[in-house]
């Protein structure tokens, strides 16, 4: 359950930025989570429900954008998205050792009171 500590750091960062911006309330927190990050979005939602009470984000929703796995094929010289997470290029079948996206664990944005 490392999602709990990951959600805790994301929430702390968001609350800190909200304070710096002078916003009293956070309405939405947006994350970008790669499918190869090792983090389960549902578990983040579950952790968020447990962590938000008593904070400026008590009434906030958590929106998670899943980032697909994108590899670089050096043979075809192009990127491809792999839905099944296999590293083989769909055109030439050569495996790619270069993962270009899919490991993101990012606090991308938030909605706060207009100040």
């Amino acid at each position, binding site marked *: 359950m490392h999602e709990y500590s990951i959600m805790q750091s994301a929430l702390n960062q968001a609350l800190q*930025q909200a304070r710096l911006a002078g916003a009293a309330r956070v309405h939405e927190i947006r994350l970008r989570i790669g499918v190869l990050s090792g983090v389960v979005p549902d578990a983040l939602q579950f952790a968020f429900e447990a962590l938000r009470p008593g904070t400026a984000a008590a009434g906030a929703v958590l929106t998670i954008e899943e980032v697909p796995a994108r590899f670089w094929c050096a043979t075809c010289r192009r990127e491809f998205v792999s839905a099944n997470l296999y590293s083989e290029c769909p055109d030439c079948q050569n495996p790619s050792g270069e993962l270009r996206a899919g490991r993101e664990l990012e606090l991308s944005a938030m909605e706060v009171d207009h100040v």
Partner: protein
Amino acid sequence: MCDQCGCGLSAGIPATVSGHDPHDHGDHEHGHEHPHPPHSHEPGEQARQTVELRHAILEQNDRLAERNRGYFLARGVLVLNVLSSPGSGKTTLLGETIRRLGPRLKTGVIVGDLATDNDARRLRDSGAPVVQINTGTVCHLEAEMVARAVRQLDIARLDLLFIENVGNLVCPASYDLGEDLRVVLLSVTEGEDKPLKYPPVFHSANVVIVSKADLDRACDFNREAARANIRHMAPQARLFEISAKTGAGLDDWCDYLIQRHEALKQRDPLAPA
């Protein structure tokens, strides 16, 4: 858009207004044409703005991991982060590796478990200095735990440091510890399809070791299928098939570690990675 009463956006502010109070426009007039989707103007509803952040959630860990990496590189210590499910043979493999490397490389170990120092005691039998981290309820090691544990080792005397992570194929995958190489074990008793079940950790591996290789027949382990699955999820990784019990494969593995340590010593710690 109105730039006097605040209902519109001025350039350069990374904010989008998605709802605001009915308000007085003072001495100017304009319609309510908004460049964003329709929304309600209920009284009492707060005006909102979007703040772009783009923060790496594990930034603090990543920063500490980079600090660890520089510290190890400057001292010429090759560091391996060893990950696997519980019971796939990490401790036995490390013990046998340390015994074989004994005359060539001085090796230390940091070992993480939720509880007990059983693994540390087993590893001390190999003659290496060992530091046990008990993580309590934490399912993985973090860079900061490694930085603290390293202080208990005489790092200047080491060539190689194994970090035996908590037995878990999920959570440790997200945490950089500052290692040079991430080693993922898959024992033949776990089945050929383990890489397909745990893609994140295999995609992050520099080395994959098929362990307990002497038990393959007893487990009906299909080596070809395992190799194909490892290729799907970890084509970037160097593959070894090892039995720590019989010693099969250990020489290749130890030669590889000696080569990697030689290469590390040639590197300039101040050169860009």
